[in-house]
């Protein structure tokens, strides 16, 4: 700090000159230049050092404050209540546990970083404000893990955006919050809406459209229509996607018009959205086409057991311009027959209700149970699955999932695991958990990972029990716990903390049996210890956050 305020006084200017002279002499050496103020009888270098020492101490003793830079505008106040002290300490601990250290086998200690998302979700449910001094660590954590960002930014509040403007490392926070945190215009500000829509950056416009759509679908359509024809194709696609939330019959004319769009992706998305509106003209057209290809044969000629009703399929022979206009992609991917490709798309886009009428009032279960002639079964069922997911139809989902204990449910049936997971997501959470529990009880854990991922957290008691039982069976079978590390990790995050009591007996180290993998017992004990430890920690975390305002910690 050498700055001075105000104009340098004459003496200051003189001493500055003298100092310059000293530095120059020091650089060149006293052999080449006589130092200022050299006194006879003293060696020149010593004289130089003497003078410099006095000057240095004088310079340092004379330091003054500098003129202030512009002060930052204060951060917006955060009205939320502060975190309870115990929860603040917990957050510090969770944030101290950074990834990148350690590695390899995980031992018996919990993985704290994995608990941060849950902690954040809980803190956000309670509506606490983040402690300001924790914001840098929170933003750093969110910078490295994009999945954490929404929860971190919600928790971090207005001061995090204020901070992000000062540090380029945290610029993602500003991108995530459109307009740098500036509030989006409200319903009573049509002029601001219009202006932001006309002049805003792409991300801001998407956020604006989403916000308007959420409160008033018709206004959103109006905003979108006003500039629709001038938007770039990629942008049209993104804007169209905002209609997915709160899709309603009134959207049909707009979507019908979009079926004629220049961009193939926009056409396909419009068609997909229309097909999710069961009463739309497109859905009716698709129903007509699809049901025209599929019929029930009562004569028995198509089946071995005569008299059994059988589904017969007559796939379309061509993809006519009408089909193409309704979003059917004419060109099949490599390795797929054109006719089955077209059929799949028609069935997928047809309203599921049409099939009951087509098959004489049969229920989805009865329809799914019908035999299908000529190896069309997997094609047809696959398309129904996609339709059930798209139309979020639990009745059809249930029928297509079948009973979790059927042998086919575990193996390569008509419906893949990924499709099952999607079908499960359309069911209510209790039913979902029951189904997955039944599946695990019959088929074990090796196929269950994807299905567990769509279950609600914390896991319902029957599901938790099924997972723990299956892990116990895997242990008894003598395999290593890291073969199940995915499920173990999920269990640590999703199992109800109340289950830790049931896990207690599993944490002891058993003797290695003859047929077991060497040392497996110890590793299992360790894995179960980590599981119980993590569950207890989660329970503590929850208790710390639940403390009501005003309670002494």
């Amino acid at each position, binding site marked *: *700090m050498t700055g001075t305020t105000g104009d340098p006084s004459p003496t200051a200017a003189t001493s500055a000159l003298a100092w310059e002279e000293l530095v120059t002499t*020091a650089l060149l050496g006293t052999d080449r230049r006589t130092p200022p103020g050299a006194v006879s009888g003293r060696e020149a270098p010593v004289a130089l*050092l003497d003078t410099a020492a006095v000057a240095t101490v004088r310079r340092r003793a004379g330091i003054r*404050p500098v003129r202030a830079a512009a002060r930052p505008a*204060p951060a917006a106040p955060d009205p939320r209540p502060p975190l309870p002290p115990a929860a603040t300490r917990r957050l510090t601990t969770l944030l101290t546990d950074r990834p990148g250290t350690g590695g390899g086998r995980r031992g018996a200690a919990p993985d704290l970083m994995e608990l941060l998302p849950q902690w954040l979700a809980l803190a956000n449910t309670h509506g606490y404000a983040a402690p300001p001094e924790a914001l840098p660590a929170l933003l750093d954590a969110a910078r490295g893990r994009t999945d954490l960002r929404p929860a971190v930014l919600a928790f971090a509040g207005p001061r995090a955006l204020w901070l992000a403007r000062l540090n380029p490392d945290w610029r993602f926070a500003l991108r995530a919050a459109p307009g740098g945190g500036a509030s989006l215009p409200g319903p009573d500000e049509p002029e601001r809406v219009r202006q932001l829509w006309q002049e805003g950056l792409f991300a801001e416009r998407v956020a604006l459209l989403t916000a308007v759509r959420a409160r008033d679908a018709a206004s959103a359509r109006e905003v979108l229509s006003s500039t629709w024809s001038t938007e770039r194709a990629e942008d049209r696609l993104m804007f169209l996607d905002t209609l997915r939330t709160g899709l309603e019959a009134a959207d049909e004319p707009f979507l019908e018009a979009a079926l004629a769009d220049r961009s193939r992706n926009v056409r396909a998305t419009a068609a997909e959205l229309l097909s999710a509106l069961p009463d739309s003209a497109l859905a009716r057209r698709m129903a007509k086409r699809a049901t025209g290809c599929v019929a029930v044969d009562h004569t028995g000629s198509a089946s071995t057991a005569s008299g059994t009703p059988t589904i017969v399929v007559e796939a379309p022979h061509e993809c006519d311009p009408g089909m193409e206009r309704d979003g059917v992609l004419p060109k099949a991917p490599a390795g797929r027959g054109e006719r089955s490709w077209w059929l799949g798309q028609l069935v997928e886009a047809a309203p599921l209700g049409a099939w009951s009428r087509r098959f004489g009032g049969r229920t989805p279960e009865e329809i799914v149970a019908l035999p299908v002639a000529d190896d069309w079964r997997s094609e047809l069922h696959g398309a129904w699955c996609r339709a059930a997911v798209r139309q979020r139809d639990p009745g059809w989902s249930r029928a297509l999932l079948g009973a979790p204990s059927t042998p086919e449910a575990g193996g390569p049936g008509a419906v893949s695991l990924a499709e099952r997971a999607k079908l499960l997501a359309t069911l209510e959470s209790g039913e979902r958990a029951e189904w997955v529990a039944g599946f695990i009880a019959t088929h074990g854990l090796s196929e269950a990972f994807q299905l567990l991922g769509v279950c609600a957290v914390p896991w319902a008691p029957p599901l938790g029990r099924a997972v723990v039982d299956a892990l116990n069976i895997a242990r008894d079978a003598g395999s290593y716990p890291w073969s199940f590390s995915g499920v173990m990790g999920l269990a640590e995050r999703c199992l109800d903390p109340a289950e830790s009591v049931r896990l207690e007996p599993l944490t002891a180290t058993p003797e290695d049996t003859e047929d077991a993998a060497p040392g497996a017992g110890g590793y299992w004990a360790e894995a179960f210890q980590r599981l119980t430890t993590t569950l*207890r920690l989660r329970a503590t975390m929850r208790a710390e956050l639940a403390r009501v305002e005003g309670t002494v910690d």
Partner: protein
Amino acid sequence: MTQQGVRWTAEQVLALAPDAASRKAGSKLAVAGPWSAAGTSDEGTVWGLCKGSGSKPYQTVIDVADSTGPAYKCSCPSRKFPCKHALGLLLLWAGDDTAVPPGQAPDWAEQWLAGRRTRAAERTTRTDAASGATSADPEAARRRAERRADRITAGAAELEQRLTDLFRGGLAAAEQAGYALWEETAARMVDAQAPGLAARVRELGAIPGSGPGWPVRLLEECALLHLLDQGWLRRARLPEGLAATVRSRVGLSGSPDGPPVHDRWLTLAQYDTSDSRLTTRRIWLYGTGSGRTALLLSYGAAGRAPELSLPVGLAFEAEVAAYPGGGQLRAALGERFTAPEPSSVRPPGITPSEAAARYGTALQDDPWLDSYPVTLTRVIPATDGDSWQLVDADSDLALPLTSSARSRPGLWRLVALSGGAPLTVFGECGHHGFTPLTAWAAEGTNAQEPTGQAVPLC
């Protein structure tokens, strides 16, 4: 020892960890799961059994209230000190009042504690005996001191000669000479038993080529080194305070001779600096009754953490004795009477102008001082492009932050804590600028008084 009563915060426990890996490992053990039979006593002991990979759990016991800092004992084979079990147990104790309930220490913990008490008693007796022994042969001690002073004098004279040669040829030539020249000179100073001179010479070696303005910095440091040499060579003619400062700057550490000050000391800051051989821990204390500021130094060799550790923001009652030297802030921690516990006292603050003046005044007693500890009140962190300042809330004056402070993560904690509002900040103010070490935010209605928790920035 009074009742232990107050638990520490997680930050305070984590500050005890020897390294980042221990902090992480300790944090993971700070849960009830692996622990059994954990408890704490009124005397300030915490114990517990930790399930490890083996069949027998580790026995961990910590004496939190020991007068020389927390003492640890764990049956695990770790060479880290404190080990992760001790850290985990302390964190658990700090965070969860139900997991470590009050109780009676088990036999194994009690044995260790009893052993410690016996040894502590012996140590006191031995120290008394040892001080008796040195005083028994003052003549030999005087001769040793004289021999060392002669060697330092020879070293200082040699250093003067080398500086003279350097300035005859010019600093521009020194840039080419490279680091070896300085290393060799520093080694000569080590031989001369003048570690203070050796350290200064080694720092000179890093200045050439250290960016714009290096000739100025090199001239300043050479001139101050010259001043120190001259001070040593003529120490007999210096006033006693300045002579003591010169002795300690040269590397004759001396021992604390000031009268013990009994006070309630608030820990303002604690931070480590380390080179390959040694970790130096600096702890700033504020005497809440006397208003004095004191610096405690603690060293750790070969990767070990320094033993002394005091949680920032907590206060404890103790005796502190100053080292000799004019205006010296360095002190030694004597007997401690209470465990660290939260305190509502905050150090009184001054303005940036007063802080700069405070450093200038301190140079009178110690011209080699790089910085002086001050607490600033009502300052706002502000940036001006690449640089940061602490701006006085009530004038348009500011202290720039040092470049090292700008690159630390603590800077962002400071900025976040402020949010554009005035803060109280403790730190070191010197010719490089200001280094913030701890901050307190104003909370609630009275914005004049800092009431928030101490937030460590280092």
